[in-house]
């Protein structure tokens, strides 16, 4: 089964986010980059699927040339083909992103045959738009399920489960399909040393899609003013336990 996974390069934010002086982006000069945890799981899930069902995993990203680093990370755990849709650093909205992905998929499928499954993360860690997978599915005329935490291929269908109000709901999709997954669907593996070596040399297919502006225009980014509580220190070690018990009693949570 041929699986395509779409990922996005995002900064690895630590204890706080800082924005640039023009308030247009996150100040990343001290930060490393990664993909969202949901997407790490999407790559892992794709690799597990082809380990069971044979086939190839392709990984696609829309981003600056530096995003090749994220493609290579995916290659290190088993992705066979790497595709970069190269941007010039401008931010792409979800509509334009979906259009570029759809064009790339159409061209690729015309040459190499259809992807039985296209995987996404449920939402990108940075913009959290929750929609690229769904827009791609509509454009390609394929069924789509989102937020999936368990996936099982039972041809000609795909059984996909997600959490819903303390339970588990099941969707059965016809293949080919588009699915977005959530962290927790699996525990991603660490890349092996030979995997890393192979990834360094893996070729990257590159093209430059046409940028277009989404009808949502970003004006400014700002860090929310969080009320910095100054914690009252109840004490150190077990000496603090009586004060802690008293506090829990005051809060009304003791049995």
């Amino acid at each position, binding site marked *: 089964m041929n699986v395509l996974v779409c990922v996005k390069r995002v900064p690895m*934010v630590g*204890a*706080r*986010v800082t924005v640039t002086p023009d308030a247009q982006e996150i100040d990343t000069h001290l930060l490393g980059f990664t993909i969202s*945890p949901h997407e790490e799981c999407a790559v892992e899930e794709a690799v597990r699927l082809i380990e069971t069902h044979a086939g190839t995993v392709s990984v696609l990203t829309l981003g600056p040339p530096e995003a090749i680093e994220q493609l290579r990370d995916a290659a290190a755990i088993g992705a066979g083909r790497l595709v970069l849709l190269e941007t010039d650093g401008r931010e792409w909205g*979800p509509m334009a992103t979906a259009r570029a992905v759809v064009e790339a998929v159409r061209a690729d499928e015309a040459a190499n045959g259809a992807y039985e499954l296209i995987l996404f993360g449920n*939402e990108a*860690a*940075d*913009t*959290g*738009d*929750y*929609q690229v997978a*769904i*827009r791609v*599915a*509509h454009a390609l005329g394929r069924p*789509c399920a*989102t*937020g999936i935490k368990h996936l099982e291929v039972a041809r000609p269908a795909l059984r996909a489960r*997600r959490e819903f109000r303390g*339970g*588990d*709901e*099941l*969707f*059965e999709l016809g293949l080919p399909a588009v699915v977005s997954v959530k*962290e*927790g669907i699996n*525990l991603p593996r660490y890349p092996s040393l030979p995997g890393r070596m192979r990834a360094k040399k893996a070729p990257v297919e590159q093209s430059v899609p046409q940028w277009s502006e989404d*009808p*949502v*225009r*970003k*004006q*400014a*980014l700002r860090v*929310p003013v*969080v009320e*910095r*509580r*100054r*914690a*009252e*220190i*109840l*004490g*150190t*070690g*077990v000496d*603090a*336990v*009586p004060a*802690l*018990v008293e*506090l829990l009693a005051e809060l009304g*949570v*003791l*049995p």
Partner: protein
Amino acid sequence: MTVLCLLEDDGTQPIDASLRALSFSRALAESSGEELAAAVVGEPGASVLASLCSFGVSAAYSIESDELASYAPVAWARALAGLGSSLAATATVAAGTDRGNEVMAHLGALLELPMVANCFTAQRSDATTVLLSRQRWAGSLIEDAVLEASPALLTVAFDGVVPEPAPRPATTSLQTYLPALDEQDLAVRVSDWTKQSSGITLAEARVVIGGGRGVGSADGFGPIEELAGLLGAAVGVSRAVTSAGWRSHSHQVGQTGTRIAPDLYVACGISGAIQHLAGCQSAKHVIAINTDADAPIISRADHAVIGDLSVIIPALVAAIRQRSGTA
């Protein structure tokens, strides 16, 4: 001129996130003197209708179809598209839940219009323009944006808006809307639902005991479980814990796990990475137990105990048992 809000309910009551979406929608409607309408899939119960009145909804539409007995995201979107168009809605809004985001994204795809997720304020400036603020990074960053599209399709960040009833309750009319659905709209639908283990769900727990890397191992959760049991609390964990395989992901609190809003959150051995804080920023009271007095969690806590949780928690459990006479 109408703002249409999709309401999700749990079978009897509207869900909390939907009440927040109604408050948000009312503010948007008021910014241009528009009516507030609500859509419910299936027949709304008495308590849902009472909420619609108190939140200022003037017209409620019950979307009725035998085909909608189980959730089908594209069909819900198709129904909202039809209803929104018949009302000439200037905006369609849903809660930023899994279903709300999903249905609105399908609606955006069907109408080929933008959908803006996780907004917390929106104000109309002219017929086709809405000024809005939305969450990025699960609320760790805010984007102020201008949306030029009609209807505006928005979802609401549930931890960014307070559910506030209208100053005066409305008289809510109730009408039935029969959607035109085709087979394609129903191709993806819930075919089965299984209840997971009973017990307090993390998302709804009033008290959550959190454990992080500082717990040290899977076995280290014993005392935390015991404390949670005593307080009738749920156990939550940081991403470090699930990545290490100590606990399953369904216990994870944070941006890519569960977002919690308990009355009390006791964070044990959790340093407080931004992705974790995004998941617990709505906790009313936070107590941190940590060896590091400079950990980021301390500056977000109301109270803190500095020290080793593997000693403090068992001592706390013993003290609580003694106090309640169950030692």
